[in-house]
């Protein structure tokens, strides 16, 4: 039986890496499809409250967010501030912002535009009520209070 034995050292062939780029490209496409671009850099803290009766926010392209909370930069105090797009804003800036957001969408999508309020849980309702009044005046009636999944008993 020694007939079949070949002479010389046996060498393990190298694993071919030529398909590695393809694998990585597949991963890239996966991430490109499942994720969305992070839109803004947050300047305020938004620790969201919890709620159980919640719906998923469909169609992220039709959602524009208002962030309200204490500034991340502690030098600016702990009073809740409003953030529109990338900067701090006042309540009076909300109607203009609504207009801008509307302009940025296609005509057919405009009535479906939803405003998501991402508000820190310790914020006083005064600011939120003011923003809501401005939204009403500007005609942005579709509103979503963004929350985390959970029970309301954890809010205290």
């Amino acid at each position, binding site marked *: 039986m020694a007939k079949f034995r070949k002479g010389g050292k046996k060498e393990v062939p190298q694993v071919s890496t030529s398909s590695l780029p393809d694998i990585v490209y597949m991963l890239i496409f996966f991430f490109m499809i499942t994720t969305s671009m992070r839109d803004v850099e947050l300047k305020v803290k938004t620790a969201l409250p919890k709620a159980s*009766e919640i719906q998923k926010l469909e169609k992220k392209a039709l959602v524009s967010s208002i962030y309200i909370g204490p500034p991340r930069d502690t030098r600016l105090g702990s009073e809740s501030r409003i953030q529109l797009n990338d900067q701090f804003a006042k309540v009076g800036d909300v109607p203009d912002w609504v207009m801008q957001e509307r302009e940025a969408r296609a005509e057919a999508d405009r009535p479906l535009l939803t405003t998501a309020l991402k508000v820190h849980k310790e914020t*006083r309702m005064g600011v939120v009520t003011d923003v809501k009044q401005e939204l009403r005046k500007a005609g942005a009636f579709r509103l979503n209070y963004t929350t985390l999944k959970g029970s309301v008993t954890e809010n205290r």
Partner: protein
Amino acid sequence: MAKKVPEINSSSQADIAFLLLCFFLMTTSMDVDYGITRRLPPPVEQNVEDIKVKERNVMNVLVNKSDRLLVNGRPTDITFLMEEAKRFMTPNPNDPTSPEVEMKTIEGINGQVMMSKGVISLQNDRGTSYAMYISVQNELARAFNLLKEEQAWKHFHKHYDQLTEDQTKAINDAVPVRVSEAEPVEIVK
């Protein structure tokens, strides 16, 4: 004889792809947003007369600046709010203290449906915390969702989330979410 073109070395392609991958991992976010969806009422005109609603048809929910809850004048804990809202909104024609009822025909449901004329009026102080406000909204929404679930069982023998589109619409018509938010005022206390 044609010149042989040297093959491009593709061993660095993997590195380039990894770089791209890292870029997308950093700049994108995967989180899905959830939340309570509400529709704001259109702005009220200045000189509109107040619509008179009978007292028995209104459940007043007040939240003050220290997050205490007052339901129809009685201090209540948030854990009982759902029960109370549900009991209030359940049609009860024999009780003179609970809201009036009316019989209505609703498209998609056989026979007439008994509907309560009750309205829940929610008012909060400017000092109420947002967490408390969300808690109250959530508990009220939970009460209405339970009522919808009951109606779905009664009329279609199915869970609310298993209904067809038309059936869902019929149930939503039969159990309208009647939560009215008062115009903001400061509650002194």
